[in-house]
């Protein structure tokens, strides 16, 4: 039975399913590398983003200016070029090549990708956090002031917790963008999910199999991440949704006019 299925696939399937199945463990390993890179850079980038976002809300140009320069540069240029700059570029300087960090970190593709991804997501996350900090409703801040909160306490207890929650929908986009962006790792020799796909195609001289498998696996990961975020949003943003006592039914007829 199993034999005949394989034989059937080998003769009739337009793509080599058997080869994909044989190499599937490599794809899973690649997916693991992709997830690792994405999650670790999101954690580092997120940790960097909080102080950067607070600095961006400062009215002092000495604090605000450099951070703005950082976020503007990283958001205005492709992640691919940023990664190349760190991986291929840093070796240009003798001081870097002779430093202790060169051998174990800065000459390693994995670390360079991690640094580039972390800085990139830090810039995007800082800006979206800044947006949600600035949009904190004034009443909440005034109430905290009236209760005698210091500015640090206000930030810690009132502004940031609510800003984090309101930033969640935009942040879910950033997570998916980072996941998509992590394919850049495959261009600097890392065997991430796409890297494995490219390896398979190169090794067996194929055009579809590796890329299609990678595409399907990326798609599954993205789907799971966005489902997870939808659940989270429902959980954390419940208090911001309009809650009607009676569910309003959509009207039929003209009100539903669609083009």
């Amino acid at each position, binding site marked *: 039975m199993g034999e005949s299925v394989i034989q059937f696939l080998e003769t009739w399937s337009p793509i080599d399913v058997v080869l994909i199945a044989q190499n599937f463990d490599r794809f899973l390993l690649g997916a693991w590398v992709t997830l690792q890179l994405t999650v670790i850079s999101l954690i580092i980038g997120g940790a960097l983003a909080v102080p950067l976002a607070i600095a961006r809300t400062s009215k002092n140009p000495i604090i605000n200016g450099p951070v703005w320069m950082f976020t*503007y*540069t990283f958001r*205005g*240029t*492709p*992640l*691919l*070029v*940023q990664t*190349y*700059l760190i991986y*291929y*570029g*840093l*070796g*240009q*300087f003798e001081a870097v090549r002779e430093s202790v960090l060169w051998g174990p970190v800065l000459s390693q593709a994995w670390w360079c990708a991690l640094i580039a991804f972390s800085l990139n997501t830090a810039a995007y996350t800082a800006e979206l956090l800044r947006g949600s900090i600035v949009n904190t*409703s*004034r*009443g909440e801040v005034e109430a905290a002031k009236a209760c005698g909160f210091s500015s640090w306490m206000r930030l810690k207890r009132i502004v940031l917790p609510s800003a984090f929650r309101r930033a969640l929908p935009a942040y879910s986009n950033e997570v998916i963008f980072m*996941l*998509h*962006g*992590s*394919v*850049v790792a*495959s*261009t600097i020799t890392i065997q991430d999910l*796409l890297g494995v*796909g*490219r390896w398979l*195609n190169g090794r067996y001289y194929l*055009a*579809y199999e590796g*890329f*299609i498998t*990678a*595409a399907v696996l*990326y*798609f599954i990961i*993205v*789907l799971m991440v966005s489902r997870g975020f939808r659940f989270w949003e429902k959980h954390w943003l419940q208090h911001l949704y309009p809650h009607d006592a009676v569910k309003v039914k959509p009207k039929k007829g*003209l*009100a539903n*006019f*669609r*083009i």
Partner: protein
Amino acid sequence: MDVILEYQGQLLQGTWVTIQLAIFSLMFSVGFGLLGAWAKLSKNLVAQKTAAGYTTIVRGVPDLVLILLVFFGGQELANSIGAVTGLWEYAEISQFAAGVATIGVVFGGYMTETFRGAILSIPKGQIEAGVACGMNRVLIFRRIIGPQMVRYALPGFSNNWLVQIKSTALVSVIGLQDVVYNGFVAGRSTRLLFTFMFAVLMIYLLLTAISDLALRWLDRKYSKGIVVRPDDG
């Protein structure tokens, strides 16, 4: 700095390729976006489902994967079709065409959502008023929906466009001689990769900064006469 001036020809040529790639793929993505928004809002169930599938797939798979698939897979497919039908012997897809098509289709998915949202944010009363005046759908689109859609779609459109310009860098991976590719080659032959990649970074920053300014100007132009409510906290 002198080295960059020495190689400025290659860099400028690459920049020009990048700009062309970005503009052509933008035209594709706007076309696909309008088509997709129309399909998503149509009453036809098949069109709705097709558009939903299109935007889900295109936004779920990283663009580089699709670029590679279209470039290598598309070539193979074209050759197989040629071999079966006997219409052509050997077909080759250019890197530029593969890049324009893929980025156009991918960002068409994002544009679909932007345009759909813009159409939906036009107050229904206006459309109903159009119906009451006896306008047909085409007229309603031309006189009521179309002009206002531009304004509602502009913020999302700006966002997509800025991401799209940066995505064009990925086409260098399949060997298109754009600014990244040319910068990389120049950097490797002079052993000054940092200098050249930094120059490329600055060129991209210039492109996005100019687009940003232009889009802001457009936004002001299309929001003329719109009263913005002061922040009511």
